[in-house]
């Protein structure tokens, strides 16, 4: 058994959107990659889920928004919030996500829908800079920062790096919320950003 999810997959939302829009708009050629309207968002999410579910029982996906010019609140809800919700249950498939290319024009819409649904996500806000977006506690943010700094925390290191019981609880919360990956083999907890680094 490997310590981390096998072969993280990269999904270009702009590319998926282009395929969806060619159906929606038929002959209309668009200069823009506008991720708008719920039906479009649902279609994009379905296409992403197909790829995720084909990646095995434990998967990690890098969802790239850098080619999307606009995302409205309806699509942020369909593509980001509902995608995360879909895989929060304990049962398989066990899917983890990192969102990249979440630039300033997208940020408010994505943060709003995540907060509304009490969700959080790991996002790349600037090249190589990651953060937690959405609803999270101060403790989760602090522990996530420690994990991000170290890249991974071995089971034996947890007490030394996170001496407070609250912090250790927060680490467990990050794993439960799919904001960090704990290897079932070694117990090592990985920062998701490090696991997709080679795809950026």
């Amino acid at each position, binding site marked *: 058994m490997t310590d981390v999810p096998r072969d993280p997959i990269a999904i270009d939302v702009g590319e998926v959107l282009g395929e969806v829009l060619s159906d929606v708009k038929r002959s209309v050629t668009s*200069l*823009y990659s*506008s991720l708008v309207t719920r039906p479009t968002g649902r279609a994009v999410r379905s296409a992403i889920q197909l790829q995720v579910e084909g990646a095995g029982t434990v998967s990690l996906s890098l969802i790239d928004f850098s080619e999307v010019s606009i995302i*409205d609140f309806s699509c942020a*809800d369909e593509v980001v919030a509902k995608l995360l919700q879909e895989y929060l249950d304990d049962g398989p498939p066990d899917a983890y996500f990192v969102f990249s290319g979440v630039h300033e024009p997208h940020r408010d819409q994505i943060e709003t829908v995540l907060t*509304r649904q009490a969700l959080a996500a790991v996002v790349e806000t600037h090249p190589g800079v990651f953060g937690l977006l959405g609803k999270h506690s101060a403790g989760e943010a602090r522990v996530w920062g420690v994990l991000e700094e170290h890249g991974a925390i071995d089971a034996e290191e947890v007490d030394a790096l996170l001496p407070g019981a609250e912090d250790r609880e927060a680490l467990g919360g990050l794993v439960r919320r799919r904001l960090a990956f704990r290897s079932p083999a070694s117990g090592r907890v990985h920062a998701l950003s490090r696991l997709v680094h080679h795809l950026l």
Partner: protein
Amino acid sequence: MVGLLLAGTIAGREQAALPRLGLPESHDVVGYLARMGFFEAARGIYDFDAPARRASSGGRSDVLLEITSVSSNADVHEVVDRVQGQAGAILTSKLGYPGTAAVQFSVMLSELCQNIIEHADAPGWVAAQAYNWAKRLGRFVVVISVMDVGRGFRGSLAGEHSLRYGDRWGDSTALEAAFLHGLTRFPDSGRGQGIQQIRKQVRRWDGAITIRSGTARIGQVPEWDDAPPLVDGLAPLPGAQVSIILPAKATDAFGTGGA
């Protein structure tokens, strides 16, 4: 103009032939109607004599979005695409908004248009234009107008929410439910945020938003406006009308942005 289209649609439902529309004599007004795409939108709604081409040719235009019919998902995509191409320059030059405002403006239009499709269950129209409100406000404004000929807010929400309101249920309570509390007919907790987010963005730009439906009108009123936030007992309006006014950034005595 979108109000005229709504009136013509309703009148056309009650008679065998299309209602007749007499155009104004003023070339300026006819030119303005032409620039806004009124005549294309009015085809099939009114019977009218198309103006001479000369009268319809306009000069410099402050149109952000010509009158656009909205009845499908593809129409919303088209609105957003067109606005991205046209809005940025006007929002920056006339209103003094930052270059990124075109994105928020497009998001707002997308949510407004989706309201027509998802809640009205009937076609509607959207338009946006910049005006110089020199006398009224001393500033440029952009006005967004959205209307539909659907079932209105009361009709859209009645099935899910009327029982809990009992005798108080009506046009004004339905507007309050959607506008203030984000209620929607869909049970999905991700729904109902469109209007809330539009209100938030309008507030950031110190703008005004009103929604009229049935016999009531509700609004979010900025300091520069003195309209009442809720009015009931108006003449019945089929469907719904959303009006948004976005003013130019106020400048202080030194001519810098102060809003």
